[in-house]
């Protein structure tokens, strides 16, 4: 039986990719950024922790999808996905290999559970998906895990509610639990934390709000699922809304999930870098 053993949350700031791709990790600016992942890098390669598959919740930043086609929840079921060209060439990272069998299984289960999924069989994946992989796995020749991309619209409003995201996470957990193959599965929620990339208010960082969100991922997750969009927008900047994707991850874990690791650092580019690793205590 496949089991979700852990949840991971992380910002997916493009600059982290730049630091890694250009081997600039030793620069003063980048040191604390990459240090946020030191614990996780060591932890995840332990045989008892290493996932076979990561269900990677992210958003497309106008790369695979344009204004002609805006799916609320899209699940990638192709065998593999290439890194997108976001305007400066493709990131020099490996092709992302899917566990297509599990991806299709999850897609089917979610639709039977009344989630109105869009199934995608061809797309490129952008920094939202590849930066978290780089932060955790560095620069391998091949990604050491299979990755199921699950893209959420957090760009065009209305985006899905935090509660809908949480419920999707619960349904993903049911889907994984019903997959017969023995697999260690992790679910990653990416994006956030505080950031605003536009207008006169750009650069907003709300450390206090972010910290409470990190706390409540284990202390009071039920509070988080009820946060309305307007609160993310007011408190964490217009792009802080990405944190609803963390709730998909959190909804897929048990009530008693336990914090194994936490990091928080300002700034990484325009953003507050937040990172959490949660053990799925069953």
């Amino acid at each position, binding site marked *: 039986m496949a089991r979700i053993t852990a949840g991971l949350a992380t910002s997916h700031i493009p600059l982290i990719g730049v630091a890694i791709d250009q081997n600039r990790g030793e620069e003063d600016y980048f040191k604390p950024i990459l240090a946020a992942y030191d614990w996780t890098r060591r932890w995840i390669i332990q045989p008892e922790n290493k996932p076979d598959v990561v269900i990677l919740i992210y958003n497309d930043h106008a790369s695979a999808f*344009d204004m002609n086609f805006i799916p609320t929840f899209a699940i990638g079921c192709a065998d593999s996905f290439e890194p997108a060209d976001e305007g400066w060439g493709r990131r020099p990272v490996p092709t992302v290999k899917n566990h297509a069998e599990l991806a299709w299984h999850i897609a089917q289960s979610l639709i039977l559970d009344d989630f109105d999924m869009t199934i995608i069989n061809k797309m490129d994946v952008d920094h939202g998906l590849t930066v978290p992989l780089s932060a955790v796995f560095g620069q391998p020749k091949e990604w050491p895990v299979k990755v199921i991309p699950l893209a959420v619209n957090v760009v065009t409003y209305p985006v899905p509610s935090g509660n809908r995201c949480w419920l999707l996470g619960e349904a993903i957990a049911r889907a994984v639990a019903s997959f017969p193959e023995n697999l260690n599965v992790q679910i990653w929620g990416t994006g956030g934390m505080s950031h605003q990339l*536009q*207008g*006169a208010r750009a650069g907003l*960082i709300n450390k206090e709000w972010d910290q409470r969100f990190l706390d409540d991922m284990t202390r009071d997750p039920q509070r988080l699922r009820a946060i309305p969009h307007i609160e993310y927008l007011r408190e964490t900047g217009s792009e802080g809304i990405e944190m609803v994707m963390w709730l998909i991850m959190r909804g897929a874990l048990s009530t008693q999930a336990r914090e194994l690791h936490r990091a928080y650092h300002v700034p990484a*580019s325009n953003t507050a870098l937040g990172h959490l690793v949660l053990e799925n205590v069953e």
Partner: protein
Amino acid sequence: MPDRLKDYLAAFDDIPGTRVYTTERARQGYWLNQFCMSLMKPENRERWRADERRYLEDWQLTDAQKEALLARDYNRLLDLGGNIYYLAKVFSTDGLSFVQAVSTMTGMSVEEYQKMMLAGGRSPDGQRSVKEGR
């Protein structure tokens, strides 16, 4: 129920210095954003770099959108329906980072903006609500 969507959208206008990318903006900026998407292809970036004005002729943009693009006036582009992730294709093609491009919208120099970020970023105090002044 009848006013839920209206209330949902109305609250967005109360956030200082922020344009939430609503479907209204998505409609207004449709061609602007589709133009931006075209710069994901290297051959289009070449054409754009070679002659920006000429490249813009291929797109159903308003004059205001064209001028704002040529001027790299990102605040104006947001007002005209642009979305930042689409506009990113323009400043990425220019070789600008997110910090460099974003700082141009704040009225600060890149250096001032970077200094603010290094000091912990912009405080949310006074930036949450126009109406409530908090």
